[in-house]
């Protein structure tokens, strides 16, 4: 599973499908405010696009999109975005993860909660996407470290 596939049909299909899957993933992430969707589902779809490239064009060739050595760090960054939003809300005078007290001046508190939810979902998406990719990369037989 590590090298490039021998079949040109699979390679072309994977290269064509992966950006569409990732576009749907971004759509699902932003659609979480208005209907079914959200950070976890969008992150899983983004990870599915990257893993399809990992399996079709080869693990080495797909490093240009998401490098294997940076995925665990990006997963930690996603968790830090979520927890850091809560701690910044504490520093702003509210409770933990109370988005209305984030120190941004030019929003009403209701819209501050709106963008706080969006920011937190961004952290969820980044964390879930890179978390799944790093589990797949750890299962491979290749040494990237």
């Amino acid at each position, binding site marked *: 599973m590590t090298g490039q596939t021998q079949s040109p049909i699979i390679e072309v299909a994977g290269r064509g499908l992966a950006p569409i899957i990732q576009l749907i993933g971004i759509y699902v992430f932003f659609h*979480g*405010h*208005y*209907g079914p969707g*959200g*950070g*976890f589902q969008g992150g899983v779809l983004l990870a599915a696009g990257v893993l399809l490239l990992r399996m079709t064009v080869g693990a080495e060739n797909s490093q240009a999109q998401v490098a294997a050595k940076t995925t*665990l760090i990006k*997963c*930690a960054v*996603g*968790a830090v975005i*979520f*927890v850091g939003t*809560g701690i910044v809300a504490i520093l702003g005078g509210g409770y*933990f*993860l109370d*988005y209305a007290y984030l120190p941004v001046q030019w929003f009403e508190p*209701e*819209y501050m*909660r*709106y963008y*706080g*939810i969006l920011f*937190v*979902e961004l*952290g*969820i998406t980044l*964390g*879930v996407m*890179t*978390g*799944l990719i*790093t*589990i797949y990369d*750890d*299962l491979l*037989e290749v*040494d990237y*470290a």
Partner: protein
Amino acid sequence: MMYTVADLPGRGDLNAPAQQIINPVGTPVAGAYYIQNAYKDAKTPNMVCVVLADYRSTDTMGELIVVFAGAIGCFFVLRRKRS
């Protein structure tokens, strides 16, 4: 089962027995508060998203920490060392 599903109340129906404003014990129900105030509090049309990421955001933070713990566990167990 299909016959039963047809009789279920709609999403956000305040007249449903599970979402009454005051429960039989006499205390207010949290779900009715979310239905009435989710859009006013966060200006987000999706009630589920507000409950998930605003009212109960500590639970969602725990889920993300679980995903991160799984990733870092796989890192330490499975990743090959540089030879």
